[in-house]
């Protein structure tokens, strides 16, 4: 792999940047692999990388129906945080944030990781209670939430002039999550893809998996793709909102529903908000990208949906909520809107699990799963390599549904 460094940049400048290698190779699709990973999103690519790096399994094909990094990994609002509620979740997300802190160096790919912190703006006693409770749970696992006064909030985010004493819902408190971060989402996909390719993993784009295939004994045997049959004794499903569509091809029904989550960005402006601002009461959050665009997200659309655009009503509600906090954003032009199809487990906790079909592994229910990519990929690789869950994902198994022992995660639903 050609390393990216200041020295190499200078060296290639001397030859007009004509001798850079592609970041990953296009290779012919073979008929058999040790492991097939379906989905070249964050979780699939990270799992491929860790299979090769930690477990020495590199005879791996990652198959995607579209192009690499064209799914939700490229559609999210890049909030990375560990302010979750449950014992099963917090240590996992703390680990994921700490892996992100080192990832630019590990992958030799600039993720533009910016640990700028997130501030929750609180307007009702119910949310205050819920967030204070989460704070206490987080502190047990080394994740930090710090109460912040309204005066301090106004000082830290001067553009936040709404929610004053005369408004319908005056701001009553704030909470700072100092380790929250943002980073460049495409770079996460590209960085993992490049590093996995370097370790021998093959990435095949435009290769749709039509069905999973079982062998005579009932175990997984491979997949039927738009380019023919490919065999493997281990298959990982990491297709985000499309999980149940795929598993139902072998009769496997899962407690997942697919919903539409959306975002939009403004025209680029000078730096104006240097933290992530999240308001659970109004259902809006915003951060500013390195390009200067305000990246704005809101509540999910109601009802199951596989659409990838924004519904006008959701759009208007989110804009109204944003302007309640930041009245001066009224004049900003909005440039782009989009949506993603995300699956949501029955109890709002992800599913990273073996299933009843030997050799098949599922990683799904990643509602706010961008932050989870490093730890999710690492533990998914462990699961497939050892056929047993990594300690960090023991709470994410399918067995919990069998016992109606849900892990109801409020940290998933009140922000992304």
């Amino acid at each position: 792999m050609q390393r990216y460094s200041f020295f190499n940049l200078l060296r290639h400048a001397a030859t007009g940047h004509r001798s850079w290698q592609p970041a990953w190779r296009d290779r012919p699709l073979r008929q058999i692999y040790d492991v097939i990973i379906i989905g070249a999103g964050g979780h699939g690519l990270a799992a491929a990388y860790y299979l090769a790096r930690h477990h020495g399994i590199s005879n791996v094909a990652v198959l995607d129906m579209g192009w690499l990094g064209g799914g939700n990994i490229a559609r999210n609002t890049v909030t990375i945080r560990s302010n979750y509620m449950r014992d099963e979740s917090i240590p996992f997300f703390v680990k994921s944030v700490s892996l992100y802190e080192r990832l630019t160096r590990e992958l030799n790919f600039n993720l533009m990781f910016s640990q700028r912190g997130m501030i929750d703006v609180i307007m009702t006693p119910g949310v205050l209670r819920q967030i204070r409770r989460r704070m206490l749970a987080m502190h047990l696992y080394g994740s930090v939430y710090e109460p912040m006064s309204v005066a301090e909030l106004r000082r830290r985010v001067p553009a936040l002039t709404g929610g004053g004493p005369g408004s319908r819902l005056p701001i009553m408190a704030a909470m700072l999550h100092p380790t929250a971060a943002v980073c460049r989402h495409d770079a996460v996909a590209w960085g993992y893809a490049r590093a996995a390719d370097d370790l021998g993993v093959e990435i095949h784009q435009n290769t749709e998996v039509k069905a999973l295939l079982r062998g005579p004994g009932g175990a997984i045997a491979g997949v039927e793709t738009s380019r023919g049959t490919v065999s493997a004794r281990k298959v990982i499903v990491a297709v985000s909102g499309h999980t149940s569509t795929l598993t139902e091809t072998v009769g496997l029904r899962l407690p997942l529903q697919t919903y539409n989550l959306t975002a939009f960005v403004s025209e680029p402006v000078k730096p104006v908000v240097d933290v992530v601002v999240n308001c659970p009461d109004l259902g809006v959050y915003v951060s500013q990208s390195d390009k200067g665009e305000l990246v704005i997200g809101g509540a999910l659309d109601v009802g199951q949906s596989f659409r990838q655009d924004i519904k006008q009503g959701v759009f208007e509600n989110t804009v109204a909520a944003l302007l309640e906090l930041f009245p001066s954003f009224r004049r900003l032009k909005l440039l782009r809107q989009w949506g993603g199809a995300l699956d949501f487990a029955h109890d709002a906790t992800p599913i990273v699990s073996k299933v009843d079909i030997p050799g098949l592994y599922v990683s799904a229910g990643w509602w706010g799963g961008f932050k989870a990519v490093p730890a999710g990929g690492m533990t998914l690789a462990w699961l497939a390599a050892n056929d047993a869950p990594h300690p960090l994902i023991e709470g994410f198994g399918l067995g919990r549904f069998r016992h109606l022992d849900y892990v109801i995660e409020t940290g998933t639903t009140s922000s992304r």
Partner: protein
Amino acid sequence: MLILSCPFCGERDESEFVCAGPARAPRMTLAAATDDAWVDYLTAPPNPKGVVRERWWHSHGCGEWLIVERDTLTHAIHATRGARHEHD
């Protein structure tokens, strides 16, 4: 924005309604159900790229509960009827 056609009030804007999620299949008799079938019934409603059956409440209208058939890919609405009349 969806336009839902309430059988009692006529065509109304989605913002008058509350979506209450998938309309479940009729409750199975516990004695007849296996553990797996019961868990499936409780936790895994159909998730098709196609038509789902949902319950919607006309909360800012006539107050009736409706059963709506809606396509998850196009959001087209195929049928709306009063939930009380569902099993007639």
